[in-house]
Structure formats: structure tokens, C-alpha cells
């Protein structure tokens, strides 16, 4: 281990307090959670060491295995559509058109509204008894009666609402990246006769690729941990059709008061989060090293 150079010591010293705080707020609770996952712990009684029986319990629970599948399906659909919508919105906003600032505000608005408020508003909009969307679609002979009562449609609606809420995040990151593309490259491509798609594929996408990876990394991790939209809309139903890992964890920990089992689920979620984010981080690392930064 080499001694730090003088110019390296100051930045490290400045960052140390933050690292220590994060250690206390994130790392230590995670360790406690891992410890708890080997205990039988519920309110009103002291914890009791039970080895891996919590892990055995969840791995032999069909609902848990179904939750893993549903979680991955949710993440894939959610991130895919958020990315497509976000990229489309970013490309649109990078052009000049009238009232652009108003459009920027409208696109970012879903992200700015309180999550619970927006989800409750959506729930009321599609309420079979009082919903405004219910009223509108009735003119086309469509009924919203069973939208949240069928596992598949309920799942799709959860994805749609989450995409609507979160795509502005992707939009902002990609929009910022697109605006940093040097215009002379676009001009050079135009002079060379490149089509719109070729400009997009050979100029725009490579230029913003790092930002794409960053956006996808963040969105994948956050989508994996989605809880609010599902809990408010369906509470994991109907028929367990929207019970993803976060909902399952909540049920075990705070409904059934099986905190040890909930901690075991949390450890599994942590493992999956590492698994999913590792490829993204590796791509980012390679890109950074390719540019010669140390």
C-alpha cells in the first residue's frame, strides 16, 4: 500500500466524514439485518438464534419464488419502457420548438409530485365507481371494473403508473447528456450524408452511452425496490399477482411480525441488487478506464 501523495490526502480527508456517516446509516444496519436474518424475532419476545431456518422458510414458500419472478418481470418492463420513453422525451426536448420550457415542466411534473399523492390520484381515476378514466373509456364500451381485479391487468397497470412516475428521471439524465454532444460532430455527419437513424446510432448513442448506463443502473436498482405504487394500488393482490419482493418483505416484517424472515428477504434482495447492478458497474468502470482516468 503506497503512501498517499500530498495532493491526494486533502480530498480523502474531506470525504471521510461522509463515508463514515454512510457506514453508520447504510452499512451497519445492513450488517444488523444480516444478523437478524438468522434469528427468530418478533415483537414482544427476545430474539432467538435459529440458523438458516428463515432462509429455508422463504425458499420453500411458493409466494416468495413467485415474488422473485414477478419482481424481475416488473424490473424488465419498467426499465425498458422508462428508457424508451425517457430517451424519446430527451431527444424531443433537445430540438427547438415553441413552448419548449412548458413541455419540459409538463414532462418533469410526474417526478415532482409526491409519489403517494400521484398514486392515490391514479387509483381514484380508475375506480370502477367514481373514476374519471372509467367514465371516459365507457364511451368506447370499455369497462374498468376488473382492471385491478385481474392479476395480469393489475400488474400492467402498476408498471404503467410506475413508468409514468419515473421516466422523467431518465429524461433529465439523457437530456443533459444529449445537450453536451459537440454540434460539429453532427455537422460532420450531415456533410457526410448520414441519415437521421445513422446520426442517432453512430453519433448520439455512443456520445451519451455513459449517461445511458448511469440512468439504467439507477432505474434498475430503484425499480427492483418499488413498493409504494403496488401497496397503494393493490396491496400485493389480487391473488398475489402483484406481490413482488418488497411487498413480500413488508408482509412478513410488518404484517406477520416475522422480522427475522423479513430480514432474510432483505438479504436476498440485497444479493439480487448486487447481481443486477454488477454488469452496469463493470461497463461504467471499463468506460472510465478507457478514457485514461485514474
Amino acid at each position, binding site marked *: 500500500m503506497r503512501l498517499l501523495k500530498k495532493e491526494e*490526502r*486533502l480530498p480523502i*480527508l*474531506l470525504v*471521510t*466524514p461522509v463515508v*463514515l*456517516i454512510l457506514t*453508520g446509516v447504510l452499512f*451497519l444496519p445492513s450488517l444488523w439485518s444480516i444478523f437478524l436474518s438468522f434469528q427468530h424475532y*418478533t*415483537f*414482544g*419476545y427476545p430474539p432467538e438464534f435459529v440458523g438458516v431456518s428463515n432462509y429455508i422458510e422463504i425458499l420453500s414458500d411458493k409466494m416468495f419464488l413467485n415474488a422473485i419472478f414477478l419482481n424481475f418481470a416488473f424490473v424488465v418492463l419498467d426499465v425498458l419502457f422508462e428508457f424508451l420513453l425517457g430517451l424519446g422525451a430527451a431527444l424531443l426536448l433537445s430540438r427547438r420548438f415553441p413552448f419548449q420550457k412548458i413541455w419540459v415542466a409538463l414532462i418533469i411534473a410526474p417526478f415532482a409530485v409526491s409519489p403517494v399523492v400521484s398514486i392515490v390520484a391514479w387509483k381514484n381515476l380508475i*375506480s*370502477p*365507481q*367514481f373514476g374519471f378514466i372509467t367514465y371516459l373509456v365507457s364511451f368506447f364500451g370499455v369497462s374498468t*371494473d*376488473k382492471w*385491478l*381485479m385481474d392479476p395480469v391487468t393489475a400488474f400492467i397497470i402498476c408498471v404503467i403508473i410506475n413508468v409514468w412516475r419515473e421516466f422523467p428521471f431518465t429524461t433529465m439524465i439523457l437530456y443533459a447528456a444529449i445537450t453536451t454532444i459537440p454540434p460539429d460532430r453532427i455537422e460532420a455527419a450531415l456533410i457526410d450524408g448520414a441519415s437521421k437513424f445513422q446520426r442517432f446510432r453512430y453519433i448520439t448513442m455512443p456520445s451519451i452511452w455513459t449517461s445511458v448506463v448511469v440512468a439504467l443502473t439507477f432505474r434498475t436498482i430503484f425499480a427492483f425496490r418499488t413498493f409504494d405504487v403496488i401497496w397503494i394500488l*393493490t*396491496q400485493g*393482490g*389480487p*391473488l*398475489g399477482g402483484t406481490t413482488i419482493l418488497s411487498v413480500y418483505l413488508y*408482509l412478513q416484517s*410488518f*404484517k*406477520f*411480525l*416475522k422480522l427475522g424472515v423479513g430480514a432474510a428477504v432483505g438479504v436476498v434482495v440485497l444479493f439480487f441488487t448486487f447481481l443486477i447492478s454488477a454488469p452496469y458497474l463493470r461497463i461504467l468502470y471499463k468506460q472510465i*478506464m*478507457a*478514457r*485514461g482516468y485514474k
Partner: protein
Amino acid sequence: MRQEETLRGAGKLNWIFDIDHKKDKSKKESYIFEGYNLYTSQLYPTSWMDMSEPKKVDRRKFIYAGFGAVALIAIGAAAYVAMNPPVVTQTVITSTTVPTTSVVTTTVPTTSLITTTVPTTSVITLTEPKPEKLIFQGHEVHRKAAVGANAPGQINLIAQFEEVTGIKVEWVTLANPENYDKLMRECSAAEATINLAHCLTTWWAPRMANLFEQLDPWLEKAPIEEFNDFMPAALQSATIGGKLYGIPVRCSGSSMMYHKGYFEERGATPPKVIEEFYDVAKQVTFTKPSGEKVYGFSSNANIGELYEVLTWFARSWDADLITPDYKVVCNQGPVVQALDILAKMYRDGITPPNLTQLQNQDHVNLVKEGRVSLLPGGVSYIITYNDPKTSKVAGQIELAYHPPAAEFKNKWEGAAPTFTYIWSMIIPKNAKYKSWSWELIRFLSSKKSNLILSMQGTDVARTSVYSNPQYLEFWQKQGFPKYPDVLQKVLKYGRPPIPGMDNFSQVAQIIGTKAEEAILGKKTAQQAMDEAAELLKPLMPKS
């Protein structure tokens, strides 16, 4: 000394750093640091450092190091405090004796239907410092009854307590499932943020003895007047291992209600036996000229509370889902029949299409909007549904006996034994200001307070209230003459929906999930309840 370093990266830029050190500090020579870009063949001066001057000490580094050290110490101290929270000791600051005559005396204006005064006395010597406020967790029904928010002219008991004691009472009200979750978290924390709470019968489990304050010593120090007046069953529900942990404040019972206007329009009469239920409900399912659909039957049948709805139907046959001695019987005849009725009504559009997602407030809103003809409900909800301020159907919702099965038609005076709920006021063991919380409990448990509460939307646990002439006259004048009779039968024959146990929440979830499968047509009622029984048996307390 000349030193060349070439740094290569993966990119196309290469630099040669030409470092020319001058070690003779007496000479005013500079240290030149240049970069030579091989790619562009250009020389870029990158930085200059003057080596001839004596080095100045950069004090900023010491300051930053100091900040870093302070931050480290603060984090260490915070971690220590978090691991070893200080124990709050009650120090005697003042010794205050509350006057032994009336603490709270009020006379209700004679325009009100409730004409009574609410005296109470306190002999407790309060040595605990007085808090600014007490936080009371419960259901919205409790709050409304205590503050007189259900109808005009009602008495605000809480305001009286606040006026006399100078302590503000703040409410935290939640639906039942969320109430239970929060109560458990509060009682398990290092210190509760609430001071007292309401606890429901089905939540009582052995774990509560470790989480709730035992109240027998408080009763000895400062007794509640005429404690023998409380229903023994109500007191029993708040007793664990022979020790009392709660004071009953509400005895709720579920009966049947109907929209009399819709029934008259459609020429229907409320079902007298459960076998008529489906046909009657179908008869009163219709679409208004405005396009709004009126459902024949609705309830708060969400997963967490579906076991109540199922029990409600099953009690027509006097059946249980789980017996008081913890035998699982949810897959037996009457319960399966009950689930069949529910499933059939759902399939035929008699219930709302989102039945299994209706929370209590959603269901109440549906009724108040005039979208429901027939419904189960706590007897005291009659006031809520007929409140002219908030309900579009005020004056239309009427009480009726819960219909028994035909074979039991004459067994329980015409009313089936539905389920009862007993809410008790408890003090978390880890709460602050327990003596003041006990004062509030004593105040709300007095005979007069109970009489007032019984006429403001909550049915109480004192037996003397139900034979009080003022109580009987009140319901006559309110336009609900059947109220005392219906309630009396519910309390006489009813019992809790499922016995209290540590796994209550998981049991409710399993029953709700499986019943939903039958209602949505994914399984037959028998299949669903057989699966539920298999999942429930390992969760039952071992005797």
C-alpha cells in the same frame, strides 16, 4: 535532474512530462513542469511551482483535519447513544393533588338531545410532570365519538378533559389493519411516540403482556367508578394470565343494515333468513337513470378484513372459522356455504367489482353515496351513515337483525349470533406520562362519559348504560327505535370473529387470500377453504 515520464492511456493522447528539479534553494530558480503532447506536437505548460521561496505552512490542512476529527468523535458519540439510549427517569418536580370534587363538570345545552353532565373525580396524586399533549391512537370511530363529531349537538368529552387538565389530546386514527401494525411497532420501540391506544379483541395475544402496561396497580391507586358495572366478557377480553391490561371502551357488534328507500322502490323486504339473502340482494341491485349502479351488497372485504365478512355470513349457522379453543373449522359446511353466497353474488354483479380491494373508508363512502342497498356493519355505524352533513342517504339507512339460517329461525330471538368486537384502552409499557394517560382513561371510563359515548357513535361496555332511560329515549328521538334492541341481541349472542393469537395478522391474511380465490372464481369455495385450513393449522397456538 531531468526526469521523463511518459504516461499512456487507452486513448490517443500521450504526454511527456519534463521535470526539471533545481535542488539549490538559495538560487531563485523555478521548477518547471511542462507537458509535451506527442499527438499534437505541442508544448503545454501545465503548472509552475516556485521552489526558491521557503515553503509556507498551509494551515487549512490542519483545520480540515480538525473538522475530520470532530466529525469522527460526533459519529462515535451518536453511535454510542443509539446503542445505549438514556433511560428517562421520572423525577418528582411538583406534587399536585387534583381536587377531589368534580374535575370535569359540564352541562349540555338543552337544545341537545343529550342532556347530561359529566362529573368525574380523581384521587390520584400526580407526581409526574404534566405533558403538553397526550397522543391517542385508535380508529376514527373512537375519535368521533369522543369529540362528538358524528352529529350536531354532541358533547366534546376530549375538550372538557383538555380544559381542566391543560393537556392537549392529539389523535392518530387509522383503519384496523394499519392500526395493529403501528401499535406493534410503537410498543416495540425504545420509547413509544404515543401515550395510549385502543386495542381490538382479535389482537389480544400473549405477547401483549410484554408490550402493554398492567393496569391492576393503577386501578388500586386510582380506581374507576363502579368497576363492576363493566361486562365480565369485555374485561376478560383484555386480561392475560389473570392480569388486566386494558379498560374496555367500545363493544361493537355487527348487524345488518339496508337502504329503506331502495327496498320500497323495488318492493323488497330485508331477508329474515340467510337463504333469502341472495335473492333479496339481487332484487335490490339496479342501475339508476343517471347510470350509477347500485349494488345489492357491499362490505369492506379487503384481504385483511375479508375474514370478518366471511364470519358474518357463517354466523347465520352459528359457525366459526376457528373455534375459541383454536380448532380450524373454516373448511366445514357452513363456512363453505357462506363463501359460496359471497362468490355467487360477486359473479352475478351484485357486489362491487373491486369488492376484495375495498377498505373500510371506501365501503363507507359507497354507502354514503347511495351505491349500496344491503350491508353488514357495526351497529353504531347507523349514525355515520345517516349523518346529514356527510351522507347523501341520511335518514335512509335502517337497522335490521342479521338473518339466521332457516333451521335456527327461532333460536336467537330472530337474530343470528354475529361477531362482536371489544376495544380496550391500553397504555404501552414504553410510553411516557402514564399517570396522565390513566387519568384520561378514567375520565372516558366514568359512568357519565360512557353514557355520552353510547349516544355518540360507540357502544360501551358498561351494562347499566343499556337500561338507562335517557339512553332508550335518545334512540327513540333519533329515529332509531330498534337500535337498543338490535345491539342488545348482538352483544348477548355474538362473540369475536376469531380468537386472539400472536399470529392473528397472518391468519387473517391466509383466510382473506384463499377466500378471494373463491370469490374471483379461481377455485371452488371448498378447495379454497381446504387449502386455508392446511395453512392455518400449523399457526394455531399449541395448548
